[in-house]
């Protein structure tokens, strides 16, 4: 789960990271009032879950409260990478002498959180890693012991020569690590970490992603979720305990298991079609899940055909068949459905489907080809 910059900054501030004052607003008038309160030059920053906000015109400097208001009226409501801006952060603009990058990311190779720091901050760190890897120091941390002061100091010396700045930066590293661990983050970064002409070390931007698997033990973080920043169908799916990702095609897919769901989408593409979504109904055999899945998929007007691909292991295929029958009785389908199921209780499932006027196949390739043909408006093979 991603949280907004202002939420990440609140978390880091609570851990003692020095961050210029700021407040969030949803209207230009609020922006003006906040700018007045902060005084001096301010930055108005779009709060959306995507990178490249600056390039898209979602981050702007304002010299006066009136200018801040005018800028806010342009940023609020604008779309950045398809996401509408509903909230902006108004923050005091700091003078910048140098910019550095500090981040912690969960590294799959070392199976540890890895600190990444670079004196080349303010830009995309992936670009720095690709072009000038010598400008990045990576340090894996054993979470059983945590970040040690000597390690924080080593990271600080990679960024600065001046001991005062090194100490300030090391303290920020310790705080960032605390925030990463306490909040079950998979990513926590400060980019840029700036030094002001007066020698102060400050975090100007912050990003935190939280491990979805850990949300059960963080009710306080669940509250930070901004559903307006997400696809409505995906919010609906999550509330129905389904894993759903909307795509641009027209073959709606209902599959059990993430790997098979991806393989099904790939097979749709292989046979010349385009998948409309990723959807994993999971391992349990709850007919309710099938009902919800059908509701969410058929709500998308671009979907021309529904494809079920169920391999019954723990999932009982008769439960899925019952779910299909129940769902289509209450909400009759306006588009064709192609069903493939095999595995646990296959014979019972086939019988249920036949008795209710559905046909089903036990072969994955056959079903996918049929669905693709139907989506293209042709007759089923």
């Amino acid at each position, binding site marked *: 789960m991603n949280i907004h910059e202002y939420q990440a900054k609140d978390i880091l501030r609570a851990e003692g990271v020095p961050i210029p004052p700021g407040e969030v607003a949803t209207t230009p008038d609020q922006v003006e009032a906040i700018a007045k309160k902060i005084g001096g030059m301010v930055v108005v920053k779009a709060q959306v879950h995507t990178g490249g906000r600056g390039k898209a015109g979602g981050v702007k400097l304002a010299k006066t409260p009136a200018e801040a208001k005018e800028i806010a009226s342009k940023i609020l409501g604008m779309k950045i990478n398809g996401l509408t801006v509903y909230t902006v952060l108004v923050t005091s603009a700091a003078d910048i002498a140098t910019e550095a990058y500090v981040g912690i990311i*969960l590294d799959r*190779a070392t199976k540890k959180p890895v600190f990444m720091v670079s004196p080349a901050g303010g830009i995309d760190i992936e670009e720095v890693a690709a072009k000038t890897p010598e400008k990045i120091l990576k340090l894996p941390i054993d979470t059983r012991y945590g970040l040690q002061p000597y390690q924080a100091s080593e990271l600080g010396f990679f960024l600065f020569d001046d001991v005062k700045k090194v100490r300030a930066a090391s303290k920020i590293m310790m705080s960032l690590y605390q925030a990463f661990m306490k909040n079950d983050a998979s990513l926590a970064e400060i980019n840029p970490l700036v030094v002001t002409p007066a020698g102060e070390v400050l975090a100007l931007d912050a990003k935190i992603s939280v491990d979805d*698997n*850990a949300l059960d033990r963080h009710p306080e973080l669940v509250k930070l979720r901004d559903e307006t920043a997400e696809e409505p169908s995906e919010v609906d799916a999550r509330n129905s305990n389904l894993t759903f990702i909307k795509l641009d095609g027209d073959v709606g897919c209902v599959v059990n298991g*993430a790997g*098979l769901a991806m393989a099904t989408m790939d097979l749709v593409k292989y046979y010349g079609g385009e998948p409309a979504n*990723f959807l994993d109904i999971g391992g349990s055999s709850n007919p309710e899940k099938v009902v919800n899945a059908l509701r969410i998929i058929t709500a998308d007007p671009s979907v021309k055909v529904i494809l079920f691909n169920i391999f019954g292991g723990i999932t009982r295929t008769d439960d899925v068949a019952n779910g299909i029958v129940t769902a289509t009785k209450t909400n009759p389908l306006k588009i064709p459905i192609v069903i493939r199921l095999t595995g646990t209780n296959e014979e019972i499932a086939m019988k249920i489907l036949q008795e209710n006027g559905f046909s089903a196949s036990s072969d*994955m390739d056959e079903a996918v080809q049929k669905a693709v043909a139907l989506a293209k408006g042709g007759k089923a093979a």
Partner: protein
Amino acid sequence: MSIFIDDSTTVIVQGITGRDGGFHTKQMLEYGTKIVGGVTPGKGGQTFENTVPVFNTVHEAVQATKANTSVIYVPPMYAADAIMEAADAGIRFIVAITEGVPVLDMTKVYPFVKEKGARLLGPNCPGLITPGKSKVGIIPGRICTPGNIGVVSRSGTLTYEVVYQLTRAGMGQSTCVGIGGDPINGTNFIDCLAAFEADPDTKAVAMMGEIGGTDEQEAAAFVKQHMKKPVVGFIAGQTAPPGRRMGHAGAIISGSSGTAAEKIEAFQSAGMGVAKRPIDFVELLRARM
């Protein structure tokens, strides 16, 4: 022969009295797996299905039964503790089925298990099966048949699909292993490939990877350098958008790394067969054996 489990495998079930643990213990017993005990704190002294003794702790269970393997079905927030308990009690092979274990928990568990000298499979995995001998986990036994193809995969139902296609084509399996879809797991592709290479009963390997991370690329390099047996690979998620977690916590393209295209290219440059569809495994393996 086979890898990791055979008919000498003796298993305790952690979370045996839970809904999932209970259901799958019955399935494993039916398949012939030697389930010698179960663990549920507070239910020690009971018996499961009138046959399997239940203990309060893994230490007690190991002392009483001499089990060498454990399978874990406890809820995600308790899974890390259960894995460490098993490793501390001297279990040599720990299979963690639980899905949804917080990844920072795994950063502590992984080195702990290593230091104890145990092997962890999973978490978030379907377990493994050596057809006709033993199954530990949730892979449906009836889709498998004994034979000489080793199967290793990051997914559950996709593994079943491929195994089902192989079985239908008359190609049996030596062992089928699901390593799990989490970003940090105990056993990776290379561990399984090395074991299959050393197993006299395995003649060829089917490997199903997916987007995210670099495990498949490293596996391809291993195949090129260290394997004589043929390996055929498949990557799920060729149509997955970047930056989105595709169900599995580990199935995510971060930035430009972890794409299906880069993994397929690694397979090709290692001289592996590349299955474009699950059904392609049958012909590609047959042609190489």
